[in-house]
């Protein structure tokens, strides 16, 4: 099966969703990216509306991390455009990054520093001084039930606790969009559920938008918006119920399997 067949398999965008996305928090427009001759992303287009939980669903090798590297300006955009609010990531990267909180797939905390030192450091990277950052950090840590570990070295925390600290760190500068790249990888089931619940609560509390990349179907809720990414292409996007319906499936898992199994014969970028 070739790329044209793949195009035919794409589900239509739910019109109700596209209408609500007139002022998207994140818009990815016709983005393509290659590593040498290897195409990692191919004409990727989607948007995340304000105060929504959007799931970027894809198997390993789908191109999720590449997309995150482009959204966070780690990589320069080769083709297409990415905007956070109205800020073009390539042209107004400072403004765009001020409104963005990031949790990377790999751990980025400094293990030899304490929890508080890590938070203070990240606050400084956003121009927030220690005097202002300390009470904010303490409040954040209290909210994630880590107030008693403030002065412990990160090395002594469990994987789930480290992830929570990373999320707290990403929220310290009050972002409007939180992007998380497979944040539950390697965590036990309880930690996964806690983190997922916490991030969902943030949408209600702060009206922020979340882009959550995962390959785990059970992290997708019926009310979420999903973007199915496979071999660097968007196969479907919209409300979960809409995507499931359009694909003639019963569950999101079925829909995902139908969409992605059709593309397995295409050479991956790995």
């Amino acid at each position, binding site marked *: 099966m070739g790329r044209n067949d793949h195009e035919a398999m794409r589900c239509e965008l739910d019109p109700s969703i596209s209408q609500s996305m007139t002022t998207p928090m994140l818009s990815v427009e016709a983005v393509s990216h290659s590593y*040498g001759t*290897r195409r*990692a992303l191919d004409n990727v287009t989607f948007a995340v509306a304000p105060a929504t939980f959007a799931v970027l669903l894809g*198997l390993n090798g789908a191109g*999720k991390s*590449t*997309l*995150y*590297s482009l959204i*966070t*300006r*780690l990589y320069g955009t080769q083709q297409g455009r990415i905007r956070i*609010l109205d*800020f073009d990531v390539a042209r107004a990267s*400072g*403004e*765009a990054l*001020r*409104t*963005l909180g*990031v949790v*990377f*797939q*790999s751990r*980025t905390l*400094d293990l*030899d*520093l304490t929890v508080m*030192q890590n938070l*203070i*450091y990240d*606050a*400084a*990277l*956003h*121009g*927030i*001084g220690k005097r202002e950052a300390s009470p*904010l950090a303490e*409040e954040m840590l*209290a*909210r*994630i*039930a880590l107030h008693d570990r403030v002065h412990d070295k990160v090395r002594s925390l469990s994987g789930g606790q480290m992830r929570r600290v990373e999320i707290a760190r990403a929220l310290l*500068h*009050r*972002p*409007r969009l939180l992007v998380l*790249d*497979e944040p539950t990888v390697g965590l036990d089931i309880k930690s996964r559920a*806690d983190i997922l*619940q916490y991030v969902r*609560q943030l949408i209600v*509390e*702060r*009206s922020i938008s979340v882009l959550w990349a995962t*390959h785990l179907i059970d992290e997708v809720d019926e009310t979420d918006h999903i973007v199915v990414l496979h071999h*660097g292409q968007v196969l479907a996007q919209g409300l979960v119920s809409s995507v499931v319906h359009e694909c003639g499936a019963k569950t999101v898992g079925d829909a995902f399997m139908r969409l992605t199994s059709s593309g397995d014969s295409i050479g991956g*970028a*790995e």
Partner: protein
Amino acid sequence: MNTAVSERHKVISVGEAKRRFSLRQFAVCLQGIVWRESLRFLHQRERFISALVRPLVWLFIFAAGFRQVLGVSIIPPYQTYILYAEYITPGLIAMIQLFNGMQSSLSMVYDREMGNMRTLLVSPFPRWYLLCAKLLAGTAVSLLQVYAFLLIARFWDIGPPPLGYLFVLPALVLSGLMLGALGMLISSVIKQLENFAGVMNFVIFPMFFASSALYPLWQVREGSPFLYYVCKFNPFTHAVELIRFALYAEVNWVSLAVTSGCTALFILGAILAYDPSRGFLARRGEGVGAG
């Protein structure tokens, strides 16, 4: 987990996001990066000790052994005959900074590979500023090492006049920046971690030995005119001479000009060449491979 949210935790407004960073915020960012690098260095005791042991071995073993072999005539800035250990002290100071610069660049390669550098790079401050701040932080760490070395050397009566400790500070900052920028430039063009061992052999050792760190250049010229010119055009020689003169409260203007020019050139090159998408993971197709 607690669900209450305070007023100060509301999201940033568009107006706030559009507002330019103030000078104070730039200073906060710089201070944070320097503070973190210093903390990391102090926590890594092995790194601190090994940074000191290397020059001390040269000073107390190598210099003692060669004291009778290598005579040093009176050359500026020295007013009289000096011990060989005295002569090589500026060279060893520069060596500390050279190794520190390369070690910082190693940590940048490692950070780029493993992801810690990403925290820095997703900061909304301009990338050139973040890299310069990282460079300054590395220089600050090298100053800690240099002054610890000078303190130990002082106990053996090796060292400059008291004012020299103060006058050498700006020279150390400049040479530290130059060598750090060189390391950063090298780390920018390194494709993967394994190449760094080659850099040690092809950059650090040639730079150190083909300089005035261990022997005066007039002695080199007598042995090999060609090597003399190699040493003369080696930026490390000028860093050593800048430090040597500053230790005696003097300025070597040629070395100052060369060191300043090379610093600017290396920083510019490093900023232009730094690309997080380079490196082993990205070339393998990190985003693709990892998801």
